[in-house]
C-alpha cells in the first residue's frame, strides 16, 4: 500500500493529483491519501482530509512506502516506523508554502540518504514506477540523537554545558556516515603552515603533463571516457621546473587524505560469488587489496614527510563493508558509507571533502584497482603537473581514476543530480579550472570487476616482482603460473596445483586437483583430481 500524506496545514494538490492520475492508469496501485484542506478530490484512491496522529501512524505502518510533502512530521513518522519515504517539496513560487524550506530540507535529507526525493511531478511519476524497489529500512530510534538528549538532560539538571565552539568550518561529518568504523576519527588538519622547500623535484622525464581544455566535455555523449591527450600547450610552457616544484611542495604540505572510492555501480559476479567485498580479495599471501593500498599510502606518507595521512574508504549504500586490515601508524583507515541514493562520485566526494579547507588537497582513487607502480611515484608526477585537478590518463586516453585535486574545486558540484567525477565533473570543470592530464603507461590495473580482471591484474602484479626480462619473454605464455595464493585458513593438499589462482579462507583443494585462473571461495571443496579452469567456485555450488 502507498500512503500519500500532505500534512494538516495546507493543501498540496500537485502531489495528490499526480499520484491520483498515476493510480488511474495503474490498476494494481493500492494507495490511500491524506489530502488536507484541499479542493482536488482523488478519483482513483480512497482518501481523507485529515487523520489524527494515531490514524496517521497506523496508515504509515501499514504502508509499504510513504509518498509525502517534505514536512518533517511526515518524514519523521515514516522514518520512525522504518518506512521508505519519497517526498516532493512544496514550492513557494506555486503558493504551496510560505517559503522554500521544504526544498532545502529535502536536499539535505536526500544527501544524508534518509529519504527519496522527486523535485517535480515528472520526477515523481518516474519514481512512482519504481516504488516497489524501495525497501523497508531500519526504524529510527524513538528519540533524538544521544548528544542532543544529553545536552538537554544536563541543562535541566543545571549542569554546566560544554557547547561546541564554532570556529570557521565545523569539523562535522556531512554524510552522516552511520557505518563509520573510524580507527581514528581526526582527519589531518590542512591548516598547517607550509613546510620549507627542501626536497628536489623528482620529475619524471618523459612524462609530460598536458593541459586539458575540457572541450571533450562537449561530446560527452559520444565517447565519454576518451579524453584524448592534447599536445603540450599553453600552460606547459609556463611550467618551469621551479613552478612544478612549488606546486609539489604546496600539495605535500596540504595533502589531507587519500580517498578510495569503493562504491559499486553494478554488482559484480565475482564479489557476489565470494561473498565479500572486492577490497578483501587477496593480492598476495598476506595482504588484501585494501592492505595493498594501505601500504602504498604509508609509503607515500613516508616519502612526503606526512606524519598522518588518513585513508578514507567511501562506500555507497549497497556495497559490502570490507574487513579492515591492521592499521599502520600514521595511516588511519576509515570506512564510511554514503547512504544516499546513488548520485555519482562527484557528489560523494564533495560531501566527503566538505570538512576540509578549500586549499587542502586530496588524492582520489578507485579502490578496486591494483597499483603496478609505487603510489608515491605516480603522485609525484601528478603533483608536479601543477593543475588544480590532476588526472592520470592511460596511454589509450582513458583516465584511470587517480585524481589529485584541491578541495575548493569540489564546492562547485551541485547538491542534486548524478555527477560522475571522472566522466562529468572533471570535463565540465576543465572550462574554469586548470585540469592537467599526466599520461602514463599502465600504472594501475583496470578496475577489478570480474574474475578475468582479477587474475589478469594479479598476473601483471606478480610479474613485476619477478625478473623483468623473463616476464617480457613469456608475456603471453599463460602456462607459466605467476601466482598461487593460499589464504590463511584454506586447506590445500601438497599435490594439488594452484595455477594463477586464489584459494580463500575456508576453502579446500584436495590431492591432485588442478585449479587454473580461478578463485575458490569459502566453503568450497575441490575434490581429488578435479580440474577447475576459469571459475569462481563458491561454497554453495
Amino acid at each position, binding site marked *: 500500500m502507498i500512503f500519500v500524506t500532505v*500534512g494538516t496545514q495546507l493543501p498540496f494538490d500537485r502531489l495528490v493529483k499526480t499520484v491520483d492520475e498515476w493510480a488511474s492508469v495503474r490498476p494494481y496501485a493500492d494507495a490511500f491519501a491524506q489530502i488536507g484542506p484541499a479542493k482536488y478530490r482523488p478519483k482513483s484512491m480512497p482518501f481523507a482530509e485529515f487523520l489524527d496522529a494515531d490514524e496517521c501512524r497506523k496508515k504509515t505502518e501499514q504502508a509499504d512506502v510513504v509518498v509525502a510533502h517534505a514536512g518533517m512530521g511526515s518524514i*519523521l*513518522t515514516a522514518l520512525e516506523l522504518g518506512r521508505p519515504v519519497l517526498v516532493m517539496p512544496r514550492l513557494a513560487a506555486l503558493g504551496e508554502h510560505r517559503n522554500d524550506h521544504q526544498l532545502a530540507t529535502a536536499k*539535505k535529507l536526500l544527501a544524508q540518504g534518509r529519504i527519496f526525493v522527486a523535485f517535480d511531478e515528472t520526477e515523481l511519476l518516474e519514481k512512482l514506477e519504481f516504488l516497489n524497489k524501495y525497501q523497508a529500512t531500519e526504524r529510527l530510534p524513538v528519540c533524538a540523537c544521544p548528544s542532543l538528549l544529553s545536552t538537554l538532560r544536563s*541543562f*535541566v539538571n543545571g549542569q554546566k554545558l560544554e557547547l561546541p565552539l564554532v570556529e570557521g568550518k565545523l569539523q562535522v561529518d556531512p554524510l552522516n556516515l552511520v557505518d563509520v568504523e573510524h580507527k581514528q576519527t581526526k582527519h589531518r588538519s590542512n591548516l598547517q603552515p607550509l613546510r620549507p622547500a627542501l626536497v628536489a623535484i623528482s620529475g619524471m622525464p618523459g612524462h609530460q603533463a598536458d593541459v586539458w581544455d575540457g572541450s571533450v566535455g562537449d561530446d560527452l555523449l559520444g565517447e565519454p571516457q576518451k579524453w584524448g591527450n592534447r599536445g603540450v600547450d599553453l600552460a606547459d610552457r609556463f611550467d618551469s621546473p621551479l613552478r612544478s616544484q612549488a606546486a609539489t611542495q604546496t600539495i605535500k604540505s596540504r595533502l589531507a587524505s587519500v580517498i578510495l572510492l569503493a562504491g559499486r555501480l553494478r554488482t559484480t559476479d565475482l564479489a557476489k560469488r565470494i561473498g565479500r567485498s572486492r577490497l578483501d580479495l587477496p593480492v598476495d599471501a598476506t595482504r588484501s587489496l585494501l592492505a595493498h593500498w594501505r601500504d602504498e599510502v604509508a609509503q607515500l606518507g613516508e616519502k612526503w614527510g606526512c606524519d598522518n595521512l588518513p585513508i578514507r574508504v567511501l562506500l555507497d549504500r549497497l556495497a559490502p563493508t570490507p574487513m579492515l586490515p591492521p592499521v599502520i601508524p600514521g595511516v588511519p583507515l576509515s570506512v564510511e558509507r554514503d547512504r544516499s541514493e546513488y548520485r555519482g562520485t562527484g557528489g560523494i566526494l564533495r560531501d566527503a571533502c566538505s570538512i576540509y579547507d578549500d586549499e587542502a588537497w586530496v588524492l582520489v582513487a578507485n579502490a578496486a584497482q591494483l597499483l603496478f607502480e609505487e603510489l608515491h611515484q605516480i603522485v609525484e608526477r601528478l603533483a608536479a603537473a601543477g593543475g588544480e585537478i590532476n588526472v592520470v590518463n592511460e596511454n589509450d586516453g582513458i583516465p584511470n581514476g587517480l585524481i589529485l585535486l584541491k578541495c575548493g574545486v569540489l564546492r562547485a558540484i551541485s547538491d542534486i543530480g548524478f555527477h560522475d567525477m571522472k566522466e562529468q565533473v572533471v570535463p565540465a570543470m576543465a572550462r574554469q579550472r586548470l585540469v592537467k592530464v599526466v599520461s602514463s603507461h599502465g600504472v594501475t590495473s583496470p578496475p577489478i570487476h570480474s574474475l578475468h580482471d582479477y587474475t589478469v591484474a594479479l598476473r601483471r602484479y606478480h610479474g613485476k616482482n619477478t625478473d623483468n626480462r623473463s616476464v617480457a619473454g613469456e608475456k603471453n605464455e599463460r602456462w607459466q603460473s605467476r601466482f598461487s595464493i593460499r589464504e590463511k585458513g584454506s586447506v590445500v593438499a601438497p599435490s594439488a596445483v594452484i595455477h594463477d589462482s586464489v584459494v580463500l579462507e575456508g576453502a579446500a583443494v584436495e590431492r591432485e586437483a588442478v585449479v587454473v585462473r580461478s578463485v575458490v571461495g569459502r566453503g568450497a571443496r575441490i575434490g581429488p583430481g578435479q580440474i577447475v579452469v576459469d571459475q569462481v567456485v563458491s561454497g554453495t555450488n
Partner: protein
Amino acid sequence: MENLTTEQDPARKRVLAVASGGGHWVQLLRATPAFAEHDLAYVTTLASYRAQVGAARFYAIKDASRWNKLGLMLMALKVLVIVLRERPDIVISTGAAVGYFALRIGKLLGAKTVWVDSIANVEKVSLSGQSIGKHADLWLTQWPHLAQPDGPHFCGSVL
C-alpha cells in the same frame, strides 16, 4: 499555591514542553525522553495528540500564526494561564508561535528556557527562532552549519 513537587524532590524539575502541531510536535516528542525523570507537561495546538503523551499533563490551544494578530493575542493569553498554573522550572520548545510565547512568558516568570530550532530550518534559523533565540537560556539549531559562537549552538539533532 506552593510548588510542592519541587520542594519534595529538588532534583525533579517541572518541565513544560511546547510545540505547535505537525513536524514541530513530532520533533518535540523525540526530544522529551531527555526529561523522563522530571515532571512533564505538554502544550500543543491539536487535541488529538493527547493520546501520545501518556500520563503527562496535556494542554491543547488553538493555533495561530503571525498573520493572525487576534489569534496570537488569544494564544498568548492562554499560554500565560498555562504557565501560571504549571509554574515550570524549564520551558522547552521546538517551534512556532505557541513556543515563542511559552518561552517569553516562562522566562518572565523565572523559568529556564530552551529553544530547539526545527530541523526543517536548513538554510537559516526560523523567524521565531531568531526573535526568541537571544531570550532563551539554551538556543540550539539542528544543523551544524547554522551554529554561531553566541548561539544557536549545535549539539545534535532529533534524527
